[in-house]
């Protein structure tokens, strides 16, 4: 059975503002979960990267599609000089038909942790207006 997929885009820069020459960006699922009769194994997905610009694109199984729904992703960046940067973790990916930026997902994750008892869904105005029903106790920041 097909499972849900969400496309995520991003770009990596060095602190000095230069594009980071990356060789891979890896998203590691924190635990296994279930969807549509399938087991989603806790494995690593590697994004497609453009080394010169640091841009990457990856299609991931969204965490909120899971039966348990409590998994998240941990990111590892590998650079051309062989170094590895870790530290971005607990990235919670939600289902979305439209591609999302990694920053947006990270903001959602952080906000959700900051507002106790509330979920956070960052949407476009069109996406928000298209919602048939709104979820209870949810903050909807509208991106412009």
């Amino acid at each position, binding site marked *: 059975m097909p499972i849900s997929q969400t496309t995520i885009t991003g770009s990596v820069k060095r602190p000095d503002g230069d594009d980071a020459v990356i060789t891979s960006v890896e998203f590691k699922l924190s635990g296994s979960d279930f969807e549509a009769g399938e087991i989603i194994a806790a494995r690593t997905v590697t994004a497609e990267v453009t080394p010169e610009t640091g841009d990457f694109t990856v299609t991931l199984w969204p965490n909120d599609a899971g039966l348990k729904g409590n998994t998240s992703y941990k990111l590892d960046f590998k650079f051309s000089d062989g170094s590895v940067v870790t530290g971005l973790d607990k990235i919670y990916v939600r289902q979305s038909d439209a591609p999302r930026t990694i920053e947006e997902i990270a903001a959602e994750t952080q*906000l959700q942790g900051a507002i106790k008892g509330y979920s956070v869904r960052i949407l476009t*105005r069109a996406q*928000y207006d298209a919602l048939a029903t*709104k979820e*209870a106790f949810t903050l909807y920041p509208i*991106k*412009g």
Partner: protein
Amino acid sequence: MLTFFKNNIIAAYITDKDGVAVEIDVLDAAGVSLLNGEAPSPPVLTSEISDVSMTVGDPDLVIDLSQHFSGATSYAATAGALASSTLRVTADAERTVDVKVKATNSAGSVSDTFSLSITDAVTGPVLSSETANGEVSIVANGDVEWTITEPAEYEGGPYTVDRSAEYSGNLNVEYTENTAPQVIVTGAVERVSGASDIAGATYKATPPLWQIASDDVAQYTSEWWLDGVTTGVSADEDYVASGPGTVFAVCSITIPGKEIRHAVSNEIAVSETTSASRFIAPDATKITDFVDASGNTFSTFGFGAHKFEIHNNYLRRIWPSASWYVINRDDVIGADQYAEMTFDVPSVLNASTDWKDYFVGPAVRTSPSTIDVQANPNDMHAYAVVFQDVNTGIALRMIKVTAFENTKTYSMRLAEYLVQAGDYAGGQITVAISAVGSTLKMFVNGAEVATAQDAEFATGNVGIVGQIADAAADYKRNSGIVSFDARSVL
């Protein structure tokens, strides 16, 4: 995160437990909006809170403050209980206060004040639901207005009851009929239970067709008329017309100050000198008959000695002047007879008074209709079913009544059946007797409960038998008669 909001987020909504969304602003620590960069403004009073009037015990009143203020992030109030953006007011005690509500955000606050008035619970009377028999329970003291179902015979209504004068302990209930015919009734309401004329008392309204107060004296008048002219001859006497013409007798019952409710007359054209017997019109119709709703006729002799009350066209109360009495129905329906009466049973039966010293019941094979109820004539007899004691219940007895030597009466108990009063309290009971050959049967609500054999009286009329067992008793009591009916047993 602040930069992310500034650069990417243009609006924000937040939902409640039901998924209902409201638009919100997102402010930084200085109160500046991250969505539009504007400095905050104080809350605004969008609509004043209306003054509140409540009664102690009313349900809580919840005021949604978001409907009165905009831009507030918190609220404060000098009374009531705040929860998020609602103010709950509980009517727990009598008071009148001004309630100030203050709405606040980081830029300031705005207030509104409304008056909260909580009055004590109404201490006036509360009537319980009226029962099928017109009974009500008074569950609190004070003036009451009570509307009762109007009898079908009345053209207007309804009645109202003013109990304002009752609390001194005297039963003084007045009915005032709102529309014509105006009838003022005193004492037509009978307390059937309850400790006193206050809360807990139960009253029973018996709006009669012909309303007689306990101290009223019904005056009977009758007179023969000839060709439309009064003769001055009482219809109590035999009358011999002085010549050809139309003879008729008019009999009426009047109560001073009250409207005539019952009058009968008969007339007949005579072509020659004609005589008419006492109380019997020339066409042989008894002119003092009562006619009940079913068309049955009760004969009596003289209203002056006996008082009757008619309720919904039924005989309700009998105030005889003799200890034993028999009221016969005129028609003879054969030797095998059945007679029944239905009674209202008080909600709480008083064993010392109700149906003990004064009782009445249906009778068969009674003595001829010429028997007067005023005395104990020699040939008075009847089989009857009556209530005779209520010490442990209602003793329903089938008796044989015989009078002799014009002054003496004896009754013999033929059968007895003990009715549990509680089974019928507040309702009705129908008792009946039948005589077929020498077999007598007693019935309660259609079920045979006892039988006896007696062959002494083989024929007679159907009617009503009663006795005032105790001369000192209040024999004017309402015995609760609802209906009488009789038929032949084929």
